């Protein structure tokens, strides 16, 4: 993949031009499915887009100094990181990629979380700082499971290339890894039962409390793109290899939507755990999956 292809993938397909509508679509699916499970009508199809446009038109209060500059910077970086993560996904077979792009995807998936933490502290709001510290604690917990699961999958297939992973056949270890990733996704996407970061009944919007206008719109967009990237990663791992690019693209979208629905059902069926319980849950899971990951790495070494 040369620089031009990389830029095209990040900015056009499956980057921002695909990721932005997909983000709004996924946000709508999540809200609509949640409403259906709660006997509500839910928002119209275009509502996430309308919300974005409305927020873009709102005035932002003037913020002076470095803190104000940083508060403007974090959402832009979060959108860029999320778009980059979506851009790396092998939506269409043989669309490029490079050895080790899985590592880059993981780091890009992690960046929005770090920017959220930084944004909460930059805002100097009590609720923002509380939400950020919760996000930081949760991030340290679930990422152990998340990374171990990815390492386990990659090691079992002897590759860190997304394209190669998408083309390879599934294995029991891989399915275990996918299960571990699915357990982590609610925490990554701030959904129940791991939604302590933005627990609106306790700390308003958490790190986003002081945000409004186009900055908040960018955060929403970044959050939607995180949805696309995270569910897309799962879809990449569970999709059977198909030669037809259209079929592969359609299957990718269908599987991503299925993952969104599963996460929504889990969120609707569970209540919010406290930060202590969330951390305890992830560290207990981490033990099992860490052993799994490390053992698979050892297995790969022996085979080599």
């Amino acid at each position: 993949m040369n620089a031009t292809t990389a830029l095209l993938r990040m900015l056009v397909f499956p980057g921002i031009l695909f990721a932005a509508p997909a983000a709004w679509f996924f946000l709508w699916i999540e809200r609509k499915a949640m409403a259906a499970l709660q006997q509500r009508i839910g928002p119209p199809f275009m509502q996430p887009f309308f919300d974005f446009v409305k927020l873009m038109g709102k005035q932002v209060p003037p913020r002076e100094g470095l803190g104000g500059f940083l508060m403007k910077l974090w959402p832009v970086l979060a959108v860029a990181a999320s778009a980059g993560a979506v851009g790396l996904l092998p939506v269409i077979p043989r669309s490029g990629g490079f050895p080790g792009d899985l590592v880059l995807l993981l780091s890009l998936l992690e960046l929005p979380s770090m920017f959220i933490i930084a944004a909460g502290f930059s805002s100097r709001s009590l609720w923002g700082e509380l939400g950020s510290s919760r996000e930081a604690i949760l991030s340290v917990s679930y990422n152990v499971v998340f990374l171990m699961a990815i390492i386990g999958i990659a090691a079992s297939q002897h590759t860190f290339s997304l394209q190669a992973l998408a083309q390879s056949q599934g294995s029991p270890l891989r399915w275990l890894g996918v299960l571990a990733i699915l357990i982590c996704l609610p925490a990554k996407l701030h959904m129940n039962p791991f939604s302590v970061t933005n627990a609106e009944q306790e700390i308003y919007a958490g790190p986003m409390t002081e945000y409004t206008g186009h900055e908040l719109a960018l955060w929403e967009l970044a959050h939607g793109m995180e949805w696309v990237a995270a569910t897309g990663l799962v879809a990449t791992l569970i999709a059977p290899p198909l030669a037809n690019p259209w079929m592969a693209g359609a299957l990718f979208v269908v599987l991503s939507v299925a993952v969104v629905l599963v996460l929504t059902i889990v969120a609707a069926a569970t209540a919010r755990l406290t930060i202590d319980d969330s951390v305890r849950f992830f560290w207990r899971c981490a033990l099992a999956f860490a052993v799994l990951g490390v053992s698979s790495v050892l297995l790969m070494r022996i085979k080599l």
Partner: protein
Amino acid sequence: MNILRLLLNNFLGGSITTRFPNRPPADKGFRGLVRYDPQICTGCGVCAYRCSSRGISFRSSRTAYTWAYDPGQCTYCGRCVDGCEAHAITQEAAPPPLYYKRDELNLAHTTQRPLPPPKKKPEAAPATGEAK
């Protein structure tokens, strides 16, 4: 697993909410738009005094008073209705209609105060002394 059964029933049972502007029928005690009857109003201005959201304004002079209502400011709390001893203010038992222009539902009514009876001019005091 009860929660999953509940979610399934919710999903199959359909929605109990409606899409705007469709609204469920209002109950008997529903507090909607404030209505004003200038024929009964005594012009005391208590409604404006009791309105904490400044939905009702009352301007008075010696010859007339103007009662004005802005539904955009109104919180439909009903304190004006409770405070009106003449019962000149009531509330509709229906949600307010949709409106697309600002201040479209605003009301204002000016009532002339009844003229006070003409004062009798005091009779001229009887002359006490002769003019010099």
